[in-house]
């Protein structure tokens, strides 16, 4: 299996990079139902480089989640990454986008960026402490640049305004007919408090600690996981970055390592737009409700056709109350 994959990848790279490429040490790093990541070494003539392959859909796996949330295919994911790079956002450089006839499915190849991605290490490992201030500033700058991407350069992104977001999560809960007062409260609160902000722009959609590569020396080195990029309220990205779950036990709100004030200041300085603090707070609170819904879906995944009962998914199902507890504390001014 791995051998066949290496062969296909080698053929694809040789064709796309106009020269014989030998693929070595292909190893799977992570994998979910909708995405798989592989690391490998590409030998081109006398030089070798470490590369990463992302496969965004493997085989025929389609689930109800991907019908309800806008997930980009490999090509669009790569093109959004490249549009971000053109605006000065730190990303892994795209080496090539896989074609249908490469036989690998939808995906792309990037350069390998060395560093840490584990959220808990980044927010709590003492080695990262001196980098925290810089990383907060970088996060604000990166978000400002992402939000400055001209939507005409990424015409494949779909619009999901604030009301659409709330509606999507309401529908997901209805799909499972799961009834929990705290969750219903969260959804109803969101429906009553959703910001009337309809100036949509390019947003990352999943910009948070755990989705970037960092080192103590450089701080943030590359922003990852662009597959739910969309046209939405830019304040959504700022709020999501502060959701308590994504602090990984860190004591500060922004990613677990920075203050909201420092994040907002860096953002405003970079793009000249004012942060709507109220809207960010909505997105942070609603972000917790969203994560509760995602936990619920993971916990009930085994009930979907063709799914196995998996211990990790079950355990995540039991985490529904964590973000809802955070949500309540936040709306009552204790967050």
């Amino acid at each position, binding site marked *: 299996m791995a051998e066949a994959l290496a062969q296909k990848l080698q053929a694809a790279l040789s064709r796309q990079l106009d020269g014989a490429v030998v693929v070595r040490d292909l190893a799977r790093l992570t994998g979910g139902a909708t995405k798989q990541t592989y690391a490998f070494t590409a030998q081109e003539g006398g030089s070798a480089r470490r590369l990463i392959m992302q496969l965004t859909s493997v085989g025929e796996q389609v689930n109800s989640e991907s019908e309800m949330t806008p997930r980009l295919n490999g090509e669009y994911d790569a093109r959004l990454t490249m549009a971000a790079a053109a605006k000065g956002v730190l990303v892994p450089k795209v080496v090539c986008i896989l074609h249908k006839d490469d036989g690998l499915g939808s995906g792309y190849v990037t350069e390998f960026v060395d560093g840490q991605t584990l959220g808990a290490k980044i927010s709590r490992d003492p080695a990262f402490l001196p980098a925290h201030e810089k990383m907060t500033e970088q996060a604000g700058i990166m978000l400002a640049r992402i939000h400055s991407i001209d939507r005409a350069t990424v015409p494949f992104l779909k619009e999901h305004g604030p009301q659409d977001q709330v509606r999507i999560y309401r529908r997901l809960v209805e799909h499972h007919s799961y009834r929990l007062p705290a969750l219903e*409260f969260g959804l*109803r609160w969101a429906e009553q408090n959703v910001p009337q902000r309809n100036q949509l722009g390019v947003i990352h959609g999943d910009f948070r600690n755990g989705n970037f590569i960092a080192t103590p020396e450089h701080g943030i080195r590359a922003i990852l996981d662009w597959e739910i990029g969309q046209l939405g309220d830019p304040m959504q990205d700022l709020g999501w970055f502060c959701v308590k779950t994504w602090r990984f036990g860190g004591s500060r709100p922004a990613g677990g390592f920075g203050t909201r004030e420092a994040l907002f200041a860096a953002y405003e300085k970079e793009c000249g737009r004012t942060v709507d603090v109220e809207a960010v707070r909505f997105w942070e609170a609603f972000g917790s409700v969203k994560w509760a819904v995602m936990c619920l879906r993971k916990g009930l995944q085994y009930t979907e056709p063709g799914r196995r009962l998996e211990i990790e998914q079950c355990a995540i199902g039991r985490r529904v109350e964590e973000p809802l507890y955070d949500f309540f504390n936040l709306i009552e001014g204790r967050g």
Partner: protein
Amino acid sequence: MPSGLPKPEILLQAAIAYLREELLPTLSGYHAYQVRVTISVLGILQRSFEKGAALDADERQRLVELLGAEGSRTALNDMLVERISKDEVSLDDPQLRDHILRSLDEALQINNPKWLKN
């Protein structure tokens, strides 16, 4: 129900002790991770045995008082969901908020007590 000794909670304790003290140190990577998750899931069961029934009873009693109705905990929870979704109760109602926050606290005492501390 057929029963015997040791009691269920002791069986669980023995299973956890084996996984944590004997099996886990021999593993790495994927299986070490999976076993850690398994131990934490068994911990949820331990806490359910210990206090699940008492916490459920507390929640049911609060629901009876909040809703002014009788029924099983599940039926009362469904009724509360209905009232919230139809705006029959204000989200600013302090009694509602207090009940929901307490219910979350109770669930976390079983599912992840550490979350209550941070």
